[in-house]
């Protein structure tokens, strides 16, 4: 059973000028189990990580990340984005089991 993917947090400015490069920041609650730890009985705790993050703007892939177990628990991911028009960001986090968490955020032109 995969560990829960918690409620994501996303921060982007609600408004931006056309041509402005903004920062998109995300944080999600997840243990990022490496698969290299052992439990008290000595059994290996199976790997269970968020392995993929994708950010799409109006359906277009803007940024993606492949994560290895070397990403810290509760992954923090931030990247720039050049605003050209108003639209909607969709963020997707996918774990080893293929389960997904999504979040959406709108950007308006100032």
């Amino acid at each position, binding site marked *: 059973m995969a560990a829960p993917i*918690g*409620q994501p*947090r996303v*921060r982007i400015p609600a408004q931006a000028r056309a041509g402005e490069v903004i920062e998109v*920041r995300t*944080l999600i*609650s997840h*243990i*990022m189990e490496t698969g290299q730890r052992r439990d008290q009985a000595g059994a290996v705790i199976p790997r269970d990580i968020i392995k993929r993050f994708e950010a799409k703007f109006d359906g277009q892939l803007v940024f993606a990340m492949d994560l290895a177990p070397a990403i*810290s*628990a*509760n992954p*923090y991911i931030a990247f720039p984005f050049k605003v050209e028009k108003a639209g909607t960001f969709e963020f997707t986090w996918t774990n080893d089991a293929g389960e997904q968490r999504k979040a959406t955020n709108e950007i308006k032109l100032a």
Partner: protein
Amino acid sequence: MGKVAGLTLGGAALAAGLALAQGGAPEPQRAIPDPQSGRHFATPETLAIQDDDFQNPAMLWAEEGEAAWSRVEGTAGQSCASCHNDGTQTMRGVRARMPAYHARLNRVVTLEQQINICRTERMGAPALPVDSRPLNAITTYVALQSRGMPVNVDISGPARPFFDAGERFYNTRRGQLDMRCGSCHEDNYGRSLRADLLSQGMSNGFPTYRLKEQRVISLQFRLQGCVNDVRGEAPPMGGEEFTNLEFYLAWRAQGLPVESPSVRR
């Protein structure tokens, strides 16, 4: 509801009355009169994570606690919000004055214990296990409402014996290393112990997101670690010894701003 404030006041008045009746024990003196928060012993990178509410992973716990605040649980069909309304208002300053003497129970209770008292006695809900994620989450949410306010616990009157017990625990040498808490946190702060820079062992940042644990931990979880460090036998979390010790630690940190949720290595 609005009954809560009245009851709390009642408790305070009773405590004050008892203090007068006992004539008051002499003021204890702090070994470190001018305490420094653990943040003074952290690297800029760790502080950058703490000081940015977006990046601080403990805020994930605070948000879980916020959601739990208005979730109905237990046989009484109530949530925290049923009695305490808007937590951002009613919980202001609570973390700064806890642990506190609880008149009806005639003992000192920590913030975590008070939350469980409300759950079991008023909501008809089971107590949350010590240092569990849901208990740390609601505690983090409540503590956050006092951020920046000076720690200010009341050790007078009937609370004093519990304070004294905590002080005795603090000053007792224990473990194979035969050390007291102060051996590290009073006599050697600012120095490195193996690779670790010793702080004054202040409690104003708890609950804290511990980088090592990669989760929010309660103060008593940290205290177990410290007792284990001197190869001592740690008393149970949530028990009387650690509760009194936590009370004493709050007094050591008196005046420091509540920093919860802090980030520590």
